[in-house]
């Protein structure tokens, strides 16, 4: 009996000893010291797709969008610098109906073929011919024709004058900018073609896919065309994108240097602090996200919110300092300075004086101030006839005033907190406010239904992406489907006329500032959206294997590891000796 027990124990111990060898081999299939490991929160389901033009055609968070695929030009939003990449510039004719794109000489696809103007033209024509492709409507409606003047010059004839059309070719501009390789895609059915391994112009090619390990491995190209532009090859040999573990395990991995760039959405602020306390290898790079949290939309067709004074009353119910400080531990934040999406990015600084003048004028003209003032909010509602009757306010016809707020559940923490706070503030001034909680997947459906009064949420930072305040003010008119626009875009012909005028003017044009100021004046007066707090993602890096990351003190590039511009961060890294 005793002998059997001893033998059994020895077998178990031998098993543990034998298998422990594997536990020490590390978590990546390539040399760790030559690799940057990046976390994502995505559950991978596409392991063989490099087709951005169909749903499910590529895997977000796999590194494909960040390392292989490229855009034509970028902003360095941290510094405001414009980075011309695959193109060296653009021109318009006098009436902005013809856009000429100048392709950089020497750009090549990762199979060695040159990237030319013919690729740009082929991509446009492919989109125009296939209504199943994302980007079809844009190419069909806004481009009349495209031609390659020569290998390095593409000429696009537009359907209407548009001095901002080149923005389509900027990072995350539109489907037009994600150009495919003509020599690869020609003759293929683009609605089913996988483009895998991906033929792209980016600095990394696919090394291996590990479906069972939720991992994509990318290897640096020695023949990358960009090395000439950068003045030499740099950055890690390999980059691994992988699904992140739960928070506690992620913390251990960061502390031990097993991951170089965790995802801020998962690696919350308290984890960052813990990691810094436990390791000397952790550096942080907090950066403002372009999408502030606030009131995403009002239903401007309701009895109450058809009045801009009522929307201003809501703006005055936000104690932005408090809400910014109460932000969930995942992020720090700052109060939004003006009532439109304007993070403190380099590209937006030029509009700050304009905004300050607008706020002064609104105070002088209408006694409207963008600050926490519940008493004034109540007075505004009184002035509209929504007066107190007992505990609650009533409508001018004598019915109890009820307001429904549309909110995603507590999993969308910032939105949920903000909504709770607003409900409390509304009740304090006698408004019977309730929350309708909807699943994130159904949020757009509810927006489209118009069955709500106020929809808190993330406000898309259109202005920041383009570096142009106009796009932020104009977004409801073109970024959304008409059904939603009808609910949320207040009627104001004067404002729309100014935006029409501004659509033909660029920020640097003579007299542009006055026009921007007038348009902004009417836009803020209408209080279409209310940014409350600007989210700051604290991107964390480990410098156990790599140094040169952007940091709090030296934010030389946007640090976010899920952005396509992350390759510029990688170019700046050097291995720890």
């Amino acid at each position, binding site marked *: 009996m005793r002998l059997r027990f001893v033998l059994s124990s020895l077998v178990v111990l031998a098993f543990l000893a034998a298998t422990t060898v594997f*536990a020490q081999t590390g978590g*990546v299939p390539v040399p760790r010291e030559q690799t940057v490991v990046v976390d994502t929160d995505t559950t991978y389901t596409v392991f063989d797709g490099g087709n951005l033009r169909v749903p499910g055609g590529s895997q977000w968070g796999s590194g494909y969008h960040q390392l292989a695929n490229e855009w034509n030009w970028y902003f360095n939003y941290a510094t405001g610098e414009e980075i011309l990449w695959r193109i060296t510039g653009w021109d318009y004719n006098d009436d902005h109906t013809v856009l000429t794109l100048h392709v950089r000489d020497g750009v090549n696809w990762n199979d060695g073929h040159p990237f030319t103007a013919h690729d740009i033209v082929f991509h446009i024509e492919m989109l125009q011919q296939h209504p199943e492709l994302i980007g079809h409507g*844009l190419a069909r409606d806004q481009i009349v024709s495209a031609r390659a003047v020569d290998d390095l010059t593409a000429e696009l004839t537009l359907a209407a004058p548009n001095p901002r059309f080149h923005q389509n070719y900027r990072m995350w501009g539109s489907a037009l900018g994600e150009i495919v390789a003509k020599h690869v895609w020609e003759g293929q059915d683009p609605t089913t073609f996988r483009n895998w391994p991906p033929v792209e112009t980016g600095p990394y090619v696919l090394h291996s896919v590990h479906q069972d390990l939720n991992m994509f491995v990318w290897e640096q190209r020695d023949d990358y065309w960009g090395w000439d532009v950068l003045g030499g090859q740099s950055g890690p040999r390999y980059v691994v994108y992988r699904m992140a573990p739960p928070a506690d395990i992620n913390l*251990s991995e960061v502390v031990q240097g097993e991951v170089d760039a965790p995802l801020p959405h998962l690696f919350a602020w308290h984890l960052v602090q813990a990691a810094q306390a436990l390791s000397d290898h952790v550096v942080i790079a907090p950066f403002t996200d372009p999408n502030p949290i606030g009131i995403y939309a009002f239903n401007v067709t309701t009895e109450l919110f058809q009045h801009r004074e009522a929307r201003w009353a809501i703006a005055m119910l936000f104690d932005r300092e408090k809400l910014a400080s109460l932000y969930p531990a995942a992020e720090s934040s700052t109060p939004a300075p003006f009532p439109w999406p304007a993070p403190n990015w380099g590209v937006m600084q030029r509009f700050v004086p304009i905004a300050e003048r607008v706020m002064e004028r609104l105070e002088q003209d209408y006694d409207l101030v963008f600050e926490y003032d519940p008493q004034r909010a109540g007075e505004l509602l009184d002035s509209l006839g929504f007066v107190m009757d007992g505990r609650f306010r009533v409508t001018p016809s004598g019915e109890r005033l009820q307001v429904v707020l549309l909110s995603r559940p507590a999993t969308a923490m910032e939105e949920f907190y903000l909504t709770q706070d607003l409900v409390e503030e509304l009740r304090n001034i006698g408004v019977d406010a309730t929350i309708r909680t909807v699943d994130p997947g159904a949020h757009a459906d509810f927006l489209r239904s118009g069955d709500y009064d106020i929809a808190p949420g993330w406000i898309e930072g259109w202005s920041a992406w383009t570096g142009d305040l106009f796009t932020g003010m104009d977004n409801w008119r073109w970024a959304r489907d008409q059904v939603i626009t009808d609910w949320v875009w207040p009627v104001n012909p004067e404002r729309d006329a100014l935006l029409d005028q501004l659509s033909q003017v660029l920020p640097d044009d003579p007299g542009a500032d006055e026009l921007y100021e007038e348009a902004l004046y009417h836009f803020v007066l209408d209080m279409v959206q209310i940014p409350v707090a600007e989210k700051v993602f604290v991107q964390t890096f480990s410098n156990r294997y790599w140094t040169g990351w952007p940091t709090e003190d030296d934010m030389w590039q946007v640090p976010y590891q899920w952005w396509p511009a992350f390759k510029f961060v990688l170019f700046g890294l050097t291995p720890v000796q």
Partner: protein
Amino acid sequence: VPPPGGTAIIMPRLLLWYATRLVNYAVVFLVAFTIVFFFLRLMPGNPIDAYVETLAQMGYRIDAMGETVQIYKERFGLDRSLPEQYVRTLRQVFLEFDLGISFLSYPNQVGTLILPRLPWSLWLLGTATVIAWLLGILAGTFVGWKQGTRFDSAVYAVAIALAQVPQYLVALLLVLFFSYGIAIFPSGGAYAANVVRGLNLEFVLSVLHHTVLPAASIVIVSALFWLLTTRALTISILGEDYILFAEAKGLRKFRVLNRYILRNTLLPQVTGFAVSLAFIVNGFFLIEWIFRYPGIGTLLVAAVGQRDFNVVQGIIILSIFTVLTANLIVDLLYPLIDPRIRTGGRRS
């Protein structure tokens, strides 16, 4: 001794038993499928709109996408009325054995997403379920047999407390201790990244090594559940006359435990075991997520989030199929295990 009337009476009774079970199987399958179908479709949202919304949040311009959106709605049958969608899906699934196209991985078939993950879920959860059941039954019978002793009281108290601990918490504690405390087991994955997948010793050992912690997370809590239920069964059996008779006959204790108690606790536990085993095709999201295990659970959660009806439906149909089939098999085996069913309760 054959029953009165002999096999001539037993056979029609058995056939009727089997026929009833098969009809039940078909009806329950259809009803379950119908509930799942309408439950999914009646949820607000659909995969196409969710996808467009994601594009908008990423900063893409989504104007002028109306025609493209409409095409995909047609392709996934979302432009039709609900009854039309139901009939179409019914025909597709049951006559053509086609689970449809995945939206998450368009234009791949749903099967291409489910099949690579299924073996991992079956392996991890199957192994854990079997081990937990065996341990629980053996330990539960033994503890029940020791009813009233200090040993029984101690084990019972510990089991009651630990059986309520969520498996994910056990999983986290195991990882923090065994992966980062004494560092003898990996914190995640199905096997080491530098191992070549295939039928080789290195791979097999690596899979076993990576299975230990996730399986242990499930086994620890599940085994305690089986222990508690088996203990209760054992205690009730201990009061039966035949146990008293066996002891009075002077049989050895081990023989009483093995032949008279353990065998009688097995029968009711077999049904529960079969159902538990059938559920393994669902995967176990939390455990898979914590250990980054490539099972069905994480796929199911991702598909629900993206409203990928076909994938969710495919996984649930698979689950319904296995649960019902496991029950059917147990039902069909019952007459072999329990003679009372064979004879309709007549004494033989």
